[in-house]
């Protein structure tokens, strides 16, 4: 019994620790003072309105959204087809390819960042929207391959074969049988991909420049010369957005399953 209580207390402390930054940042966004302060003084929504007067932040947010959307779209297509090939066909080098897809998950981000910058720079893809998209694809693709491939493991080959014997070409069988059954994996993969791309910092840092900023880096720059609660307001919006997305996924397909 005491052991259980100890465990409960431990969990509570850890949760508190994890939630503390959020607990600090959200109230700070609603303060009246001009400096980022905790606990905040008074209550106002003016810092949210102030975001609209920071064109650099807005432009960076738009860039980040566009990069996340394109990188996610490409990763969904490429990742689904890759997961399918890796799961369904035995071919030489399959294991190596699978490891390659997963490599960005285990590589130090800074190493990956330097490597990507070295590849993209000579191609003129630095300070370039498509350069950032490419880099983000490298980062998010493993997540899509992983979630789709976990879902694919539950799609019985016999269903696909039944479709073939019923007159479906492999492509029609894939679109009418496999793809609908992959939906939970696709939704989860897309959500991860969007969140991770939107939040990506290290690699983007090597690729951004004037005229092509992403939101996290713009926020970092902003913090360097001004610590007003606009940052807290932006962070609050991001927290809300992320939470809403994760809850929506949890509701529709069950996120817990994606980690089992």
């Amino acid at each position: 019994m005491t052991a259980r209580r100890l465990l409960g207390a431990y969990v509570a402390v850890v949760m508190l620790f994890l939630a503390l930054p959020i607990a600090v940042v959200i109230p700070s966004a609603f303060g009246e003072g001009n400096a980022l302060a905790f606990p905040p003084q008074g209550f106002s929504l003016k810092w949210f309105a102030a975001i609209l007067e920071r064109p650099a932040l807005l432009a960076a947010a738009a860039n980040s959204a566009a990069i996340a959307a394109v990188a996610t779209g490409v990763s969904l297509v490429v990742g689904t087809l890759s997961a399918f090939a890796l799961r369904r066909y035995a071919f030489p080098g399959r294991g190596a390819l699978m490891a390659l897809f997963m490599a960005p998950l285990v590589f130090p981000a800074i190493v990956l960042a330097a490597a990507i910058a070295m590849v993209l720079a000579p191609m003129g893809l630095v300070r370039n929207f498509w350069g950032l998209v490419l880099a983000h694809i490298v980062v998010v693709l493993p997540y899509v391959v992983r979630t789709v491939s976990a879902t694919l493991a539950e799609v019985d080959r016999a269903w696909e074969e039944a479709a073939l014997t019923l007159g479906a070409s492999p492509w029609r069988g894939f679109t009418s049988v496999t793809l609908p059954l992959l939906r939970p994996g696709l939704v989860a993969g897309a959500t991860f991909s969007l969140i991770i791309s939107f939040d990506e910092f290290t690699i983007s840092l090597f690729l951004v420049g004037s005229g092509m900023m992403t939101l996290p880096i713009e926020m970092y720059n902003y913090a360097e010369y001004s610590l007003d609660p606009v940052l807290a307001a932006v962070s609050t919006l991001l927290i809300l957005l992320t939470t809403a997305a994760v809850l929506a996924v949890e509701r529709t397909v069950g996120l817990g399953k994606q980690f089992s």
Partner: protein
Amino acid sequence: MNAKGVALLGVAKWYGKVPAVQGVDLEVAPGEMVSLLGPSGCGKTTTLRMIAGLEVPDAGEIRIGGTRANEVPPWRRNIGMVFQNYALFPHKTVAENIGYGLVMRRRPRAEIATRVADAMRQVRLEGLEDRIPSQLSGGQRQRVALARALVTRPDVLLFDEPLAALDRKLREQMQVEIRLLQREVGITTIFVTHDQDEALTLSDRIVVMEEGRIVQAGTPDEIYERPRSHFVSDFIGMMNAMRGTATGQGAGGLLVRLAGGRELAVPEAAAATGSAVEIMLRPEKVQVNPPQAEGLVLAQGRVAHIVYLGAVTYLHVTVEGGATMLAMQANGQGMPAPRLGDAVTLGWRAADMVCFAAP
């Protein structure tokens, strides 16, 4: 009906270095129902999948309707297949599952609706069109799979142990239903099973396989009454096996000297003199205390064990020489039931014995 025959000519398939099917020759006539029967791993599924086009043979030729089909992909073969666990699409309703093949054939919507409704009536599934497979019982899923395979009017219908997951009663009922439906539709059918009763119930012809080869093919009674090897007779029912040596042809047939010293004449049998042979006799051919002993081969013995199974009783009888013979008696025929330890006379007709090389 558009039934087409199927022919396999020297078909072989390896999985890496494992030979799964090694040189199968088989001809299935239009409208015929043939079972592939054999123990686990003998290559039944592989053979069926090659006919479906899901596996490509490494050697030999597969013909459907007289033309070579080796290079034809499954979706152009116009076959229907019922999978072992039915393989119903879990995200589609019963009606969508059944209609899938028609949608793939791009039939008009109205035609699909009527044909699906007809098929559902045929397999007695009316009212379940909007259920999804997980809301169905095993027998209902079986029927959906059957309707889905039949609704496209395929040239050939293939089954891979479709009844293995059902309980015994339902299985027997489905066997009869499948057989009646197959006759009604007149479709060429190949049915894989490792259950001998299923093969006997369902087939025009049974093909017994062992280690990737066909060891015997014939009508159910041929396979049961005249097996050509120990493997076939043992696989398809119970048997008395008497080992001996062929000593030449006599007036009553092949003379066989049994291990105990007795000599029996087996009609219509042949074996090289001096070769080791086995005489096979089905338990139901052995009469216990036969009222008419004339013309029968007789053996005296003592009842050592009794297995009562309701409709029939099996008697294990120790005969002269110490061998045990199995006799099956139908119950309810007014025959006095022997008791444990009773002395009995066993009698059988010489023509009921089958002789082949000893394994």
